């Protein structure tokens, strides 16, 4: 799988994540009640863990997903490094929130679980990209001539 395909995959998963977090944020701001099969969404969203320093976690997630999708427009190492930082931090924070839901709040939120899956996919793909890029294995799978340096 080429780096370009991986970039598209990360961008697609990040945009899906932006959709989920955007939905959570719109419900928080009164656009309607969350569709929730577990019944725990409202409880989780009303808990003290749904905000960090007064900022809704859904807004942080939306901004993170948007930033990762934007970074995937660039093929530069610095953009990839920034995406790794954001995706991995988001994945670790999501894992923490999953533990909070199960162990502290005692309720699970459907949409948070969907977000957890998406952020895991984003983080995994970004790490694969980073590993390939750092070890140079992408060059071997790139089209012939792509690594040619003129001159």
């Amino acid at each position, binding site marked *: 799988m080429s780096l370009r395909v991986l970039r598209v995959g990360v961008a697609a998963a990040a945009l899906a994540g932006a959709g989920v977090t955007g939905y959570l944020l719109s419900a928080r701001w009164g656009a309607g*009640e969350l569709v929730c099969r577990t*019944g725990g969404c*409202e*409880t*989780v*969203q*009303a*808990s*003290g*863990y749904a*905000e*960090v*320093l*007064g900022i809704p*976690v859904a807004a*942080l997630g939306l901004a993170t997903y948007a930033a990762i999708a934007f970074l995937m427009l660039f093929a530069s*190492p*610095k953009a*990839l*490094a*920034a995406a*790794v*930082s*954001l*995706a*991995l*931090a988001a994945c*670790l*924070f999501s894992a*923490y*929130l999953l533990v*909070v839901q199960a162990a502290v*709040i*005692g*309720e699970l939120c459907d949409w948070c679980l969907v977000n957890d899956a998406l952020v895991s996919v984003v983080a995994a793909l970004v790490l694969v990209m*980073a*590993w390939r*890029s*750092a070890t*140079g294995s*992408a*060059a071997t799978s790139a089209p012939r001539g792509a690594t040619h340096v003129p001159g």
Partner: protein
Amino acid sequence: MLSRGLLAASLAVAGVLAASLISASVFGASSSEPEEVAAPTSQLAGDPALLRRLPQDGTVLGSPDAPLTLVEYADLQCPFCAEWARRAFPELVRDYVAPGRLRIEFRGLAFVGPDSEIALRSALAAGQQDRLWDVVHLLYTNQGAENTGWVTQDLLDRIGTAVPDLHAGRMLGQRWTPLVERQLNVASRAAARDGISGTPAFLAGPTGGKLEPVVLSSLDAAPVRAHLDGLSVR
């Protein structure tokens, strides 16, 4: 190509970011807890453990096998309801509910004002954890003047933490769920059907049978006792 140094730096940044977010989340969640958590009942009137060993199921207090049923229509802001709750309720609990002779069903109404609704929603949400009656009892014993905003977040936090086996966060989070909406509507329709024009109002009868209005000649336990005892000897 991403250098290994840049990759290591990005991993380190991720670790720092995640640690900062988690720290801020833990700090924010703990600081949003009420300060009274260490001594949550210090400023609460009433006994949070009054109903501790009694079965509850949603809006119903008492054994499902109890032969008699008492239905209470009440507004949690209504001062007469609070007076009845203070004077009559503990006695009825001791003499009828605890021995398994009576089950009491709460049908909450919210017509006095905004505090009525927020109090009722909180109680119904506690009912999802089968702790409605504990919250109702503490709201009555800590009732403030009508429509003064006495049903504060602080009061609900203290009640939530004082009631045994009640998860306060879940109670507060479930106040606007579809189930609570449905319970509000069901009680309101039942009140219209039963011709309830004021609170507190009571219906009593054999469980599963026809319930009849209880005439409240006073706000102590005597009128309800007389009605229940009359049913028991039939």
